[in-house]
């Protein structure tokens, strides 16, 4: 209100001194100057929408504590429930290995979501730029409306994190369950129909990005980390000012964990820079 009054006063003064026509000219000039001045920020917002902005807001990643993981596979199940993935599409399997010979046998296991690599080999091979790494949060996604289903990205991923949707369904798809849309990508392709995306597309973990609010902050942690009963999966923003703000567990700091504990990333030698760390 106060601002409006001040504008009115200014208008009156100028009108009196320069006359109406001059004022209009001046106002036009002012609007033009303001538009030019605000152009960089408008462009920046627009390019952020299209994913070409170089300014980075978030760098989401995971720190998975292997000492805490008990191989219950609740993360796998929670992910399937959250994203309603069909048979043969598993965004977060738990890899198990048995090493050695009896009696010196050891088993080891680890959850394996997509690593959302900083240097992803999968996005480079896509012939139609359907899969790309989002600048605003570092999440690697597949645009279901653009993917032609050539599956080149599946062969290029060194971690087996991509799956082809063959259009197969669980029997429950024929029941009421089938009429509940998947929230993936905010339900853009929520209901499954034969021959329509995501059937015939390559699919992968999205770090449950549908749980982000309009500013890119998570309102809820991704399903796998939220459900983990032993609190092994820490999900958060590795680029935050606070030094690795953890979305999943309050008071937990991802960077602190990485400083205090020994960690590995899979196949470091490939230079893919995975955003998922395993604490040993």
């Amino acid at each position, binding site marked *: 209100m106060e601002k409006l009054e001040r504008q009115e006063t200014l208008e009156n003064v100028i009108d009196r001194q320069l006359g109406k026509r001059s004022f209009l000219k001046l106002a036009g000039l002012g609007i033009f100057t303001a538009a030019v001045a605000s152009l960089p920020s408008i462009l920046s917002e627009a390019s952020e929408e299209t994913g070409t902005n170089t300014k980075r807001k978030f760098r989401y990643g995971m720190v998975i504590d292997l000492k805490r993981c008990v191989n219950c596979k609740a993360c*796998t199940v929670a992910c399937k429930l959250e994203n309603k993935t069909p*048979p*043969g*599409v*598993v965004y977060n*399997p*738990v*890899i*198990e*290995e048995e090493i050695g010979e009896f009696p010196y046998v050891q088993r080891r*296991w680890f959850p*394996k979501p997509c690593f959302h690599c900083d240097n992803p*080999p999968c996005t*480079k*091979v*896509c*012939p*139609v*730029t*359907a899969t790309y790494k989002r600048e605003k949060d570092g999440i690697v996604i597949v645009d279901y409306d*653009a*993917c*032609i*289903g*050539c*599956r*080149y990205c*599946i*062969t*290029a*991923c*060194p*971690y*087996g994190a*991509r*799956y*082809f*949707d*063959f*259009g*197969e369904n669980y029997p429950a798809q024929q029941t009421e369950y089938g009429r509940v849309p998947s929230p993936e990508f905010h339900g853009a392709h929520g209901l499954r129909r*034969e*021959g329509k*995306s995501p*059937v*015939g*597309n*390559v699919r992968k973990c999205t770090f449950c990005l549908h749980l982000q609010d309009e500013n890119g902050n998570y309102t809820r942690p991704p399903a796998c980390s939220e459900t983990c009963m032993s609190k092994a999966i820490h999900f958060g923003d590795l680029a935050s000012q606070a030094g690795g703000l953890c979305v999943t567990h309050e008071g937990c700091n991802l960077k602190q964990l990485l400083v205090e504990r020994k960690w590995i990333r*899979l196949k470091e030698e*490939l230079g893919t820079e995975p955003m998922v760390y395993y604490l040993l």
Partner: protein
Amino acid sequence: MKSRYGLMGWVLWGALLTLGLVGVWQRFTYGHHLANYGSFIPWGLWVAAYIYFVGLSAGAFLLSSLAYIFKVKALEAIGRLALVVATITLFMALLSIWFDIGHMERFWYVFTRPNFYSMMAWMIWMYTAYFLLLLAELGIAFWVAPAKGERWLRVLGVLGVPLAIAFHGGVGALFAVVGARSYWHSALFPILFLTGALTSGTAFLLAVVARFWPDCGEGRRQLVRLLSQITLGMILLDLLLEWSEISVPLWGNVAPHVEGLHIMLFGPFWWVFWIGHLLLGSLVPIYLLARHPDNPKWAGLGGALAAIFFMTVRLNIVIPGQVASILPGLEGAIQHPRLTTFYVPSAHEWLVLAFVVAVGILMFAVAKRRLALFGSASEVKR
């Protein structure tokens, strides 16, 4: 007698087309449900067929273009035949890969939103240029007067040779750039694809010339001898490169792609390499071509064997590279038929391939009847 064989041939072709149409109907009705590939082996028979047909095309084209450029008169007689074979096999390759993609209706996205960082995008753009060039050459070869046409064919051949080398080398590079699959990640791959293309393309032309060349005189004999010698040389060169590709990593025995080689050489489908490729696709043709280079019957058989069994080489490129585990334990994480590294093409996949072959045969039969595919005896003698 001849007409009885001809009739039998058409009956067999009819059966092949009928079976193929069943496969195509299944493909359009059930999508990818009936295919046996999955998420751990995402590329199967159709991708192998694609690189096989595209190799035949590039090989036939390179041979005919080199003949035009270097004025190899003896080979100029098969110039038109080679162009037709190159066009038909390229069409068959595109048909195979079209059936393979998840969204067939989106194939044109590769032109409207290409990613030039992707070797696949480059390959598609290059074979589009190659396809246009082939059509132009076909037009000139069949519908322009020979005096004028020969010059233009030479010009287009000069343009076409680097294009065909880049395009088919690019198909090899498409595999070679995939760092995640050590078996494919070899600098020799694009070269192997080129020699493979020339081997299979020349062998295929030899078989076609030996079987269908209308003139039974000295002209055909000379042509068969020349093609036999080129095929023989290419098979030997291809084996030499293959030896290098296989023996070096096996000798070192530490490179990750040893696993893929072990699968190819000693895995459950060992016979594809040893019997299909080495015995029937290489050693028997080598014997036949060396022993009877100018006998159309035996040299033709040698060419046919080398050309047909080259499919085993293509299968051994595509499949073992994916069977080799990229992450130990991944396969056992979830039990599902799509999440396994065991792959045998399904009946549906074979049926679709039968359709592609039937279409190719029909195109060739029509071309043979309508166009003057074969040069005259005088052209050969010249």
